């Protein structure tokens, strides 16, 4: 049974749900070991109502300073010169993709590779390259270090 993340519209169906000891980082930097069938996303754990969750989140944001920008480097595979992007200006994956597609003048998507579209990947704070879109947006903001747009597969 696929363990798709229901909160991301671009969740990859290739997430391997049988790997043991998958480490999950909650967006609030709480790490705990968990097995594949027992994971909590930052949207449904801990069990507090959405309104309270939002209040706590905005408090944290305020403590950090609303105007903290989140500039990261973006590269297109095959193009040596990269761009810089402030992720804090986007509300979610959709707006990010839209902006990137405009910036690089090509269509960029998350999810499965296919021949037509560029696929967006990111380097997380462990240094690993991952598919964008699997985790909730705010978790992504905590962990992303740089972005890379991969070339479409060629015949």
């Amino acid at each position: 049974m696929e363990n798709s993340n229901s909160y991301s519209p671009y969740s990859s169906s290739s997430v391997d749900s049988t790997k043991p000891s998958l480490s999950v980082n909650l967006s609030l930097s709480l790490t705990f070991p968990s097995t594949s069938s027992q994971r909590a996303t930052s949207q449904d754990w801990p069990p507090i109502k959405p309104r309270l969750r939002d209040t706590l989140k905005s408090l944290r944001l305020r403590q950090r300073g609303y105007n903290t920008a989140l500039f990261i480097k973006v590269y297109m595979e095959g193009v040596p010169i990269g761009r810089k992007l402030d992720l804090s200006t986007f509300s979610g994956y959709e707006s990010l993709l839209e902006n990137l597609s405009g910036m690089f003048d090509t269509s960029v998507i998350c999810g499965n590779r296919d021949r037509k579209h560029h696929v967006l990947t990111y380097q997380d704070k462990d240094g690993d390259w991952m598919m964008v879109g699997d985790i909730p947006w705010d978790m992504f903001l905590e962990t992303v270090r740089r972005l890379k747009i991969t070339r479409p597969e060629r015949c």
Partner: protein
Amino acid sequence: MNYFPDEVIEHVFDFVTSHKDRHSISLVCKSWFKIERYSRQNVFIGNCYAINPERLLRRFPCFKSLTLKGKPHFADFNLVPHGWGGFVQPWIEALARSRVGLEELRLKRMVVTDESLELLSRSFVNFKSLVLVSCEGFSTDGLASIASNCRHLQDLDLQENEIDDHRGQWLSCFPETYTSLVTLNFACLEGETNLVALERLVARSPNLRSLKLNRAVPLDALARLMACAPQIVDLGVGSYEDEQDSESCLKLQAAIRKCTSLRSLSGFLEAAPHCLSAFHPVCHNLTSLNLSYAAEIHGSHLIKLIEHCKKLQRIGDKGLEVVASTCKELQELRVFPTDLQGGGNTAVTEDGLVAISAGCPKLHSILYFCQQMTNAALITVAKNCPNFIRFRLCILEPHKPDHVTSQPLDEGFGAIVQACKNLKRLSVSGLLTDQVFLYIGMYATELEMLSIAFAGDTDKGMLYVLNGCKKMRKLEIRDSPFGDAALLADVNKYETMRSLWMSSCEVTLGGCKRLARKAPWLNVEIINENDNNRMEENGYEGRQKVDKLYLYRTVVGTRVDAPPFVWIL
């Protein structure tokens, strides 16, 4: 009793108000069943899919108050996808068609539309009270219909709903001649409020007892409102943003001082801490203080506020030791995680819980989020407070053991259920084995609702609970290794319960199918939002694990309003 005329028996029945008791008297004999039916005023339906409006009306043709609950509890935590169900429209349509004189409607976790509210407002001449808790699907336009059309409205109580705020003029829709308002709670509205309309409304509502404002009501407006409504008993403060306005602070203080009936305080969504002192004059009378959303208030201000509140019975806060030493009358406590990351001196640990249990002997309900816990602490708490009715403990990190001994917390929770003979609601967390469920099954004889997350080892755990807890009504389980064997062991048990929720457990599609076959009086729902019916089309193997299972007893069969991602077996 049977020698008395019906009217006398009916008069006696008037004193029987609890739903359970009314149900009991209806079972005594046919005559009592009939009298009870026609005299029933308040109907409570815990699951809107367990019955339908037609059958409700056939059984109770004369009721005045209806309570309906829709989505399962875990919907509060985003575990139930949007569109699952719980629509109130068919209920309101059916009630409107009938001749029932509805006066009160209380809805929880239901989908309410503007159309529903409009129909409600036009269909019941004597409609008095609307209470919506955790509902969604409507906008301020719906509120405008209620305000415009319900001439005898007393209560409009909106608690934690998702309301589309069109920034309209719903408050001005209350006619100038309308003066019967008793409760007005719109704390969950996000948009701006027409302050002039609000002030005029409050000024012409001499019976106003409970007023809960939203973010958009600033300090100076609050001061004016309080001046108009010194009789207020329950106040929800909105926003306090303007710290510089000391004149408003003084005006507020003067107005608050006149509110000698004030007993309950909540809100403080964006409170300027030093304005809290405006409330000090009334603190000694407060029995309920809910600071859940007061994320801005820290340490000393909070402590000062609490120190003034000697009569507290209900509180949600952070200054626990202060609470323990000053609030001897405390009965209910909610401690929310101020910082989900934890650590530092705002951390909430087992020490706070022990302090509370030692200092507040009347404590009977607790919802406690914390970083860590120990068995020793729980055993102490159980000894100090054997009167718990509700005990909900949420250790933020799943599977976390006793942080001193590294043992599971089985013994700690075991002590709680053993000592608290009246325990009706329990939520467990931390590292737990099947053993804790053995204790629960053995000792928690009055338990009606149990929430389990990331706990247990084998099917035995769930079986201990199902076999032991005779009064179980709602069982909700997530991320625990219980499977088909436990699910199918005693199918008839589910007839005695309202519902069972299992998500990210080990139950399989085959198991669920077998259950549905064995128990046709159950609705067995598989919620699978990502597949949208692909489960059926692809001919899923019986061994496939089910992500979300929700089953409930019903007398009206499969519901007709299920979305595509819900598969009813």
